């Protein structure tokens, strides 16, 4: 990362990535009711096109895209910056939110003549809010700006948790909000200490000025603890399963695939870009140890869940752990950059696979009228396409070739073994076995037959099944373009 990033041509694209969903959010809220859905469905393709355009420009330039707001350069002004990893997550976000919106169209549609209801309005406006906040996180180049983006994300995500307004989801939303608030205030405290010690919060400038000292260490510890509470890394994951399992399927997919990735992304920015001077082996091993604990703990709990959506939510707890294994493995060597690619690829492939998994769990629950794992027998006959999608996304989470999850975990595994940190390799392999276990727990009864044929209590449209399958196929296909993504993810990095 070069200091004093000057604004680049085409930098206005970064502004568009924030303005499109934000304008959609305001328009949807102002027009209200039945228009919210139309505004959202209009904003989605435009935002997707903007994300693709940013990716194309960054790819062509081979360097980060920068925009300084109002023409004021840091440290006085605030910059937006898109490098390789921003682009990867911007595209993933656009794809997952787009699919979730098309999926939710059947549930949250206000047909002509039908009275307007609260839930559709909330869903469409807050979907756009979450999208705007995610883009702001991925493009932020200033730690305070990232704080504001994180808060927007929390305020967008909490109402999605309690869309149905039942007591259980209200409790889940409140618990999520309290965890998130504690996280953000700790993050803000850390940011205050950094500003007091170094006089800037611009990431590139901080990287130059920060040296290991009590203020920097205290700030890094506070900010990391706050972010871990928001990303639900063990042992701060307590809020996640109830919150993600209680939301409607489309909202669960967005929450579990994308929303928890944003704080993780800031942890990456913090340790690799803003505070490289603090990247001591002890600190990195601690982060990875928490990740390893999350993998084992989350997987075991996923194996024990009686309800499908809770099983998928605990699987998220486990898969977030994998993301943190990249911290001790990344370095300036080719092996280190393979670990970097593996970590980011894990974030992307988990997002696609987990969204597909939550959406297929939603369809299964709709067809059965319940989502008890014990009562899944025969569903494979009724919803073959959905179950196939569930299996494919399970393959990606397990890390079977040639899925995206395989290439992510393979790179981390290789970096661990060849880098002499074999203990992380054990965790990766054990996690894969556990994942295989809980996916099998769902697939085995679902593919089995029943004595009397299962009669679904609600019909599921083919187009929704096809959407879920497309997303699952994408989580496999992402593994087939490893070399292309390898170059992209390194763009804009110093080493």
């Amino acid at each position: 990362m070069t200091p004093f990033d000057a604004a680049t041509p085409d930098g206005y694209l970064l502004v568009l990535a924030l303005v499109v969903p934000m304008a959609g959010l305001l328009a949807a809220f102002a027009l209200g009711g039945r228009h919210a859905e139309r505004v959202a469905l209009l904003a989605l393709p435009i935002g997707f096109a903007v994300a693709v355009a940013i990716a194309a420009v960054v790819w062509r330039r081979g360097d980060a895209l920068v925009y300084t707001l109002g023409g004021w350069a840091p440290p006085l002004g605030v910059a937006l910056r898109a490098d390789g990893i921003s682009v990867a997550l911007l595209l993933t976000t656009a794809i997952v939110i787009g699919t979730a919106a098309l999926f939710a169209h059947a549930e949250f549609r206000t047909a002509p003549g039908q009275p307007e209801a609260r839930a559709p309005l909330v869903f469409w406006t807050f979907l756009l809010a979450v999208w705007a906040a995610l883009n702001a996180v991925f493009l932020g180049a200033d730690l305070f700006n990232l704080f504001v983006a994180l808060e927007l994300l929390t305020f967008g995500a909490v109402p999605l948790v309690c869309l149905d307004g039942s007591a259980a989801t209200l409790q889940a939303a409140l618990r999520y909000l309290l965890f998130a608030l504690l996280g953000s205030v700790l993050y803000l405290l850390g940011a205050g200490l950094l500003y007091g010690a170094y006089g800037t919060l611009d990431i590139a400038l901080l990287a130059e000025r920060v040296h290991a000292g009590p203020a920097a260490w205290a700030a890094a510890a506070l900010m990391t603890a706050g972010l871990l509470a928001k990303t639900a890394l063990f042992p701060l994951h307590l809020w996640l399963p109830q919150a993600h399992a209680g939301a409607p399927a489309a909202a669960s997919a967005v929450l579990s695939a994308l929303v928890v990735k944003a704080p993780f992304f800031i942890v990456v920015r913090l340790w690799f870009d803003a505070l490289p001077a603090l990247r001591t082996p002890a600190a990195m091993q601690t982060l990875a140890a928490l990740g390893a604990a999350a993998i084992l703990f989350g997987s075991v709990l996923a194996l024990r869940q009686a309800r499908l959506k809770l099983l998928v939510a605990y699987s998220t707890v486990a898969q977030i752990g994998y993301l943190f294994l990249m911290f001790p493995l990344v370095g300036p060597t080719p092996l280190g950059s393979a670990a970097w690619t593996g970590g980011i690829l894990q974030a992307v492939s988990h997002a696609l696979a987990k969204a597909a998994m939550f959406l297929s769990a939603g369809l299964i629950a709709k067809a059965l009228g319940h989502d008890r794992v014990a009562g899944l027998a025969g569903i494979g006959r009724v919803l073959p396409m959905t179950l196939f999608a569930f299996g494919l996304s399970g393959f990606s989470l397990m890390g079977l070739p040639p899925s995206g999850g395989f290439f992510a975990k393979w790179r981390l595994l290789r970096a661990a073994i060849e880098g002499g940190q074999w203990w992380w390799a054990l965790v990766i392999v054990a996690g894969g076995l556990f994942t295989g276990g809980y996916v099998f727990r769902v697939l085995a009864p679902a593919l089995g037959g029943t004595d009397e044929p299962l009669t679904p209590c609600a019909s599921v449209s083919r187009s929704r099944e096809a959407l879920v399958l497309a997303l699952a196929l994408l989580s496999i296909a992402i593994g087939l373009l490893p070399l292309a993504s390898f170059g992209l993810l390194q763009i804009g990095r110093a080493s």
Partner: protein
Amino acid sequence: MNPATIFGLCAAVLVGLGLFGVIVQPQPLRKLLAFNVLGGGVFLLFGIVARRGEAAGFGADPVPQAMVITGLVVAFAATALAVALLRRLFDETSRATLRPDDDGADS
């Protein structure tokens, strides 16, 4: 002991009290109040940082002050959202606690 140190210690005490409350208090409303105490400590810290940055004819560094204003708005909005959720929860269940629900699925 100069004023900055005294205020800095005050901020540390507020942060400590707030953090203790957020973690130890079981009721959500008390947690929320403790969060606001904690926030008060953080904002006081920003005030001290601003004060220490006085230079070039300014009485204080305006950047941390701008951050405090943003932080206050965010904390206010967050508190309002939490209170709204809490009231709705009370309307639904006539109690306002975060007791784990008895659905048996969570272990």
